[in-house]
């Protein structure tokens, strides 16, 4: 590492670094400074990378810290009590948890098959020139802010459902034993079902774009072999593409599920904000995120605030598990493709 051994190279270095060279004596000093600068930059970037971990740690610690009063007061019963009464300070999380899960399930039940079919269309049927525009259009759906879905859902979608779809559903399923309870009650427009449908539209682009990417990663040889055997397009998709891309598709679905579980604004507009568990999908309900968004600024008293933060903690734990599982699956897929 003696710089004096290779003067020309060092000169280039020093010029590249924008340092004026005074004379031979200064050169060692300047190189020392460059080495120091490199070490500083290295540690700076390392610190920034660690900051990402600190942010996650900070979120977890602050949520646990904030929810301690509520958890101390209610213990485990917070998870399964259905009371939510700010006046008597009785709080239980089961109604928002129920709403969160049911709306997300409705969303996934619709978005997964539709998303997969769109991915099939984009990879197998669509003419080349149309692929990019359609793909971009679907991805623009993902870029629309959730508050836009909310305002659209409240003023356009919910009234439409109330006037046209829900009365039809009620009369259609009114006589059938199980379904009649699912679709019981007056058509409010807003409610669990509406929130689930809006979520389905929001999650659709995520499922579609990841499914398309993993479908495209299927080696063409496999598909061509199947076509060569005389398979129809559907059979190729069903028995060759889908099994090959299974892990990636599941990862994409879980990623969409993570979004649906945590989605706030769109749901807050259309869910109705009622702290109760109703058998009917048409009834208003609430989700964890909608409860927090609606009540946090108006929460009076430490216990109320703390109960809301505890809800946030539950939401974060649920989404963390779902997203971590999704990422692990996608990472395994990448390792397989790479290796």
């Amino acid at each position: 590492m003696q710089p004096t051994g290779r003067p020309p190279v060092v000169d280039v270095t020093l010029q590249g670094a924008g340092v004026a060279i005074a004379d031979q004596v200064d050169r060692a000093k300047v190189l020392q400074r460059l080495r120091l600068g490199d070490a500083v930059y290295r540690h700076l970037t390392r610190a920034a990378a660690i900051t990402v971990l600190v942010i996650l740690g900070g979120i977890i610690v602050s949520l646990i810290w904030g929810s301690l009063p509520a958890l101390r007061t209610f213990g485990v019963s917070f998870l399964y009590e259905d009371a939510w009464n700010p006046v008597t300070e009785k709080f239980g999380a089961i109604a928002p948890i129920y709403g969160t899960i049911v709306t997300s399930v409705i969303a996934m039940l619709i978005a997964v098959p539709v998303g997969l079919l769109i991915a099939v269309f984009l990879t197998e049927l669509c003419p080349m020139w149309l692929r990019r525009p359609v793909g971009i259009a679907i991805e623009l759906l993902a870029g629309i802010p959730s508050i836009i879905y909310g305002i659209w859902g409240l003023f356009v979608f919910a009234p439409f459902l109330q006037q046209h779809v829900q009365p039809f559903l009620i009369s259609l399923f009114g006589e059938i034993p199980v379904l009649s309870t699912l679709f019981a009650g007056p058509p409010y427009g807003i409610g669990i079902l509406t929130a689930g449908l809006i979520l389905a539209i929001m999650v659709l682009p995520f499922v579609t774009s990841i499914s398309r990417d993993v479908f495209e990663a299927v080696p063409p040889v496999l598909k061509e072999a199947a076509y060569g055997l005389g398979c129809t397009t559907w059979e190729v998709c069903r028995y060759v593409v889908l099994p090959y891309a299974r892990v990636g598709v599941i990862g994409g679905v879980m990623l969409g599920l993570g979004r649906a579980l945590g989605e706030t604004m769109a749901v807050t507009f259309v869910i109705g904000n009622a702290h109760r568990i109703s058998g009917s999908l048409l009834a208003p309900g609430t989700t964890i995120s909608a409860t927090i968004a609606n009540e946090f600024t108006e929460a009076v008293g430490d216990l109320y605030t703390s109960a809301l933060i505890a809800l946030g903690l539950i939401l974060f734990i649920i989404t963390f598990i779902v997203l971590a599982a999704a990422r692990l699956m996608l990472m395994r897929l990448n390792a397989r493709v790479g290796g």
Partner: protein
Amino acid sequence: MAATFQSSLYSARHRRNKIAMGLAFVATGFGLSWLVLILAVLLWEGFSGLSLSVFTEMTPPPGSAGGLLNPIAGSLVMTVIAVLIGTPLGVLAGTYMAEYGRYDRLTTVVRFINDILLSAPSIVVGLFIYEVMVAQMGHFSGWAGAVSLAVIVVPVVVRTTEDMLILVPDTLREAAASIGLPRSNMIIKVAYRAARAGMVTGVLLAIARISGETAPLLFTALNNQFWSLNLNAPVASLPVVIFQFALSPYHDWQKLAWTGALIITLAVLALSIIARTLAAQRKTS
């Protein structure tokens, strides 16, 4: 006998294929129709309320006309601060992951955690900043809003910076190293330049993401009826005003909410289209 059996099997498979492919067509139409429906309603409702006064007047009290000047300004200021905080942090972290510690254990962990933060519920970020800043300072503030937006910017920038730097060919790095350039100079002068378009794309996507974020602002920046850019006090922002006005019973407010929604959507779509063209240029060149 065998022939008819075979042909019926064939036609059954053919029919099933037709049905499935028909469904794929319908599904695509279904997906695209939402985009058209949402944009159509938004343009219709938003443009009818769009006028110069939207950009020159403050948010009105219920029952009178007004504009969206203070929330637009508040959103702009908080977005700029969030980007100024989040971008350097994200770029530095992404640099470590792609340049210094590409095969580190730390990088693997950070990448995993970053991907989770990327899709973590934004309302949880709001709660985090509330606990860390609002509860400690004792009041809602524009700073808290800006920081919570910065927390959302970081993962997006980290992700794109790392991805783009990894795409830079190693021969460029080796060429720089071979003339004796220290690593930090190589990164700043060679790698960043080669990856610049992609990194700008990442920042644009991050801006698009936060310009519509409502949930983290609800209880950090809160809202403000009046003109105020004092970041130590509550600051109005476009998404929060839309939320408040849309859920109000007043027709004037709802109208303004639609107009605000149109402004946000156009801004976000423009940003993502610019980002996309930048990314596409990179690929073709």
